[in-house]
């Protein structure tokens, strides 16, 4: 209820209304958000496929991670900034959108998955760095990451249809 009131207030702030009513600024932000999928999810997928032993198997896993994670993080930053703006344009509609909630839940789980990996298996990366196919634990992390990214993309796309289906 507190959140509802807060988002109601947020949606009535002048900048939120302006963003909501602007045709081109909003569409530009949306375009940036969608196209950056190719950078953020794209590089993350290549890392996950390495963790699964499905690509770049001759490259040490730590190298793939060290060189591609900065790009994934940069893409993520763009996603968060543009995503926040899209949220700010109509806070209540997003908050009440079931797919938005699903997307945020999957996002938190994906971040948790990455964080846990850093704290556990990645600390002992030297043990499996050169393995073409990393140990099972690492492969589970990669598979989980891929699955969660798929949920994020799916729920993100479905957000647009929420009102159409359930409205």
């Amino acid at each position, binding site marked *: 209820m507190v959140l509802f009131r807060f988002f109601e207030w947020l949606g009535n702030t002048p900048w939120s209304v302006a963003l909501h009513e602007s045709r081109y600024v909003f569409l530009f932000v949306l*375009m940036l958000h969608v*196209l950056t*999928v*190719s*950078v953020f999810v794209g590089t993350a997928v*290549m890392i996950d496929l390495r963790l699964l032993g499905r690509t770049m198997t001759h*490259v040490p896993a730590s190298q793939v991670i060290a060189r591609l994670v900065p790009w994934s993080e940069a893409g993520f930053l763009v996603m968060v900034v543009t995503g926040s703006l899209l949220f700010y344009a109509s806070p209540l509609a997003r908050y009440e959108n079931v797919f938005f909630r699903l997307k945020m839940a999957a996002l938190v789980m994906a971040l948790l998955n990455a964080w846990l990996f850093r704290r556990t298996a990645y600390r002992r990366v030297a043990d499996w760095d050169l393995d073409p196919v990393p140990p099972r634990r690492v492969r589970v992390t990669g598979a989980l990451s891929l699955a969660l990214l798929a949920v994020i993309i799916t729920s993100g796309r479905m957000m647009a*249809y929420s009102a*159409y289906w359930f409205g």
Partner: protein
Amino acid sequence: MSVLEFCRWVQYSAPLVAMRASPWVFPVIATIHLMGLALIGGAVLVVDLRLLGWGLQAQPVAALAHDAERWLWRGLLVMVSTGILLFMCFATKYYWLTFFWVKMAALILVVAFTVSVRRRVAMAGDADTSPARCKLVALVSISLWTIVALGGRYIGFP
């Protein structure tokens, strides 16, 4: 039969009318199309970032290109097959959008560029290609793919 007549015929054929009647077929296909975007993005960037000097610099380009290309074709397979379905759903709409034809032209160009110039430069490796040439190839590749992606986003607006 003209192209427009063909588009009309596809769009109003019985299976496509049935597909459009379903509220979830188009969104689901569009979602899979988006996943293809991620796959292509990753496979393209691994090689192009390396050519630009911002990627896996310790690795030979040839090996990376060889590995990434497999995923590029898989991504493209997902994109093209779902893209054809999306096109058929509203073929006449896309027919009238200039950006749709720009997208198709850029797609054909970038695929041709990838299997010819980019592949040759990647297979030759750093020793035989100047850094400037590598960077130019990567820039052309990224620019063309960006036009394809932009076109995709643009033609999707109602």
